[in-house]
């Protein structure tokens, strides 16, 4: 079991920004005595509790499932509750998540993501809703496996911070949103693939992705959004082709 041994002093260079006081973000350094088993988040909480209560950051579950604590640590998007300090040296840079507007210190604006999220219609679309009395749908383990991986996204947005296309093309739907739309497209209970494929070919087009694969490299939950996006490209094309052959209900 991890032992709580010697404390190690590390310097944390943290981005600070208060729109009422600062024109632009700046950095502030803190000396933190770190326990060996600490994650980056433990150091940030130590700073807030013991050194500087004016530091604002988001966090909650501290077990890598709520997705609140995404930040750029030494330039890489990380879940700070899951990232061990043992990976770092004497100086650790903590910045807000890349590619997002910054509200305050380490807190980024999330509503842009929420809009893209909702745009892919992430819910089960069926022509006729089933009543509870009719029981559950039958879904085989294989059918579940077809989309299960893509349902594991915790909305931490690390993929958006890593994606070169998100950095340059504001309209792009982005990895998590496309992966979620794909999750529903692949769910045997859903009938909404034509609608979502049209969205995938639209303004936020999945074809903006040039398969950098950075999103999948940083994803802490192994969702593999790059796989979802590139699968979606193929399916969106097939959907477009079949739409000329098969009559669609609008």
């Amino acid at each position, binding site marked *: 079991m991890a032992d709580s041994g010697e404390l190690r002093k590390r310097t944390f260079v943290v981005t600070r*920004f208060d*729109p009422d006081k600062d024109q*632009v*973000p700046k*950095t502030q350094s803190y000396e933190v005595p770190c326990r060996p088993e600490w994650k980056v988040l433990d150091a940030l909480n130590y700073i807030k509790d013991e050194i500087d209560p004016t530091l604002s950051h988001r966090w909650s579950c501290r077990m890598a499932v709520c997705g609140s604590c995404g930040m*750029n640590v030494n*330039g*890489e998007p990380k879940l700070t509750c899951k990232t061990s300090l043992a990976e770092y040296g004497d100086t650790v*840079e903590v*910045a*807000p998540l*890349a*590619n*997002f*507007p*910054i*509200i*305050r210190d380490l807190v*980024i*604006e999330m*509503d*842009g*993501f*929420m*809009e893209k999220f909702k745009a892919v219609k992430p819910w089960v679309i069926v022509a006729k809703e089933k009543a509870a009395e009719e029981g559950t749908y039958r879904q085989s383990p294989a059918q579940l*496996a*077809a*989309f299960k991986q893509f349902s594991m996204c915790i909305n931490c947005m690390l993929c*958006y911070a890593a994606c*070169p296309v*998100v*950095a*340059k*093309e*504001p309209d792009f739907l*982005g990895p998590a949103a496309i992966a979620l739309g794909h999750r529903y497209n*692949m769910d045997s209970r859903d009938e909404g693939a034509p609608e979502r494929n049209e969205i995938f070919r639209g303004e936020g087009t999945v074809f903006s992705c*040039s*398969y*950098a*694969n*950075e999103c999948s*490299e940083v994803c802490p939950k192994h969702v*593999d959004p*790059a*796989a979802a996006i*590139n*699968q979606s*490209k*193929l*399916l969106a094309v*097939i959907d477009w082709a079949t739409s000329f052959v098969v009559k669609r209900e609008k």
Partner: protein
Amino acid sequence: MTRPSDPQAMTPSKPGRTRTAPPQLPDDFWTRPRMRTYLLFDATGIVYLLVGLIALRVAWALADGAPAWDALLQSFASPGYVLFHILALISAIFVGVRFFRLFPKAQPAQIGPVKPPPPAVLHALLYAAWGGITLVLLAVFGGIWP
């Protein structure tokens, strides 16, 4: 430490209640090893553009008759052209290998009744196809076949 992303990156359609600082990228975003590989991968597009222009030149020379054709073939022997074609070959291999590596996970689990073969099989098929087409083309241009 950071540089700007697109000023509109991840910005909501309606501005929020408070002023935000613009979205940022880490300074070394484009120079990290994985990103360098990816940028190189995309940059090989220039090589293909040039290959396309060379193809036009070949077509032009064909139309102009035998002396123009001979002159063209002679010019291909020059060091510049040889180096370029070696570069084009390396680019094609680099892109091919990376593309083949990422290909299996770009296949949906199922399209209608069709399921893709496992990744090992897909890799084998892709490399076999690549090898096979290369051999056929070498045979054709080498005059061996048909």
